[in-house]
């Protein structure tokens, strides 16, 4: 019985580890950054639709949180027209790459 619990525990641990940790490559993100910087890279840029407010700063954010936000847009559990449209076509790897790029601390190697 105890052995079985251990086995289930190990299986769960492996499953969650493989789901969570895709290694992001910030260099790989560079080729695709154009879809982000048009809004997130311009000082003072404001959303145009559906409501007007400054687009959030992403620099220095936790990578894991950025991935979760993108996944939520892709799954449509979080709504914003342009972000949903962008996230719809992103792979998990691309999300991890963007997250790696934006999560780097300021002043660190680019």
């Amino acid at each position, binding site marked *: 019985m105890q052995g079985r619990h251990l086995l289930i525990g190990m299986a769960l641990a492996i499953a969650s580890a493989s789901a969570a940790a895709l290694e992001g490559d910030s260099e790989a993100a560079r080729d695709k950054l154009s879809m982000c*910087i048009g809004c*997130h*890279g311009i*000082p003072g840029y404001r959303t145009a639709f559906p*409501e007007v*407010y*400054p*687009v*959030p*700063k*992403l*620099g*220095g*954010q*936790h*990578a*894991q*949180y950025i991935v979760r*936000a993108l996944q939520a847009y892709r799954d449509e*559990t*979080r*709504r914003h027209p342009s972000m949903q449209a962008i996230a719809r076509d992103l792979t998990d790897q691309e999300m991890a790459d963007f997250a790696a*790029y*934006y999560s*780097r601390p*300021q002043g660190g190697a680019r």
Partner: protein
Amino acid sequence: MMRRAYLFGAMAMVVAAFPAHAWDAARGKEISAVCSACHGVDGNSPTPDFPIIAGQHAEYLYRSLLDYKLGNRGDPIMQGQVAELSRADMRDLAAYFASQDGLHLKR
């Protein structure tokens, strides 16, 4: 002298044009203890489960809080947190965390 009176009058009108609680970061800090439990004292959350909010645009933070309150954005924790917050509270909290060092604009 007359000119100074005009200036004073103009300033008084500007002050009056803004609501009593206009993005008061100091007051925001006073009511931020409950936020700090997850987001860190200054908004630099220590764990990736919770986003860093330090240095984020105040208007964006306010917008996020308002979206939770209006049900436009769903998150069981945040929806519970904002239930008791007034719009003035949310503006003040947004102003406080926005004024801290944290996130930056990355090109």
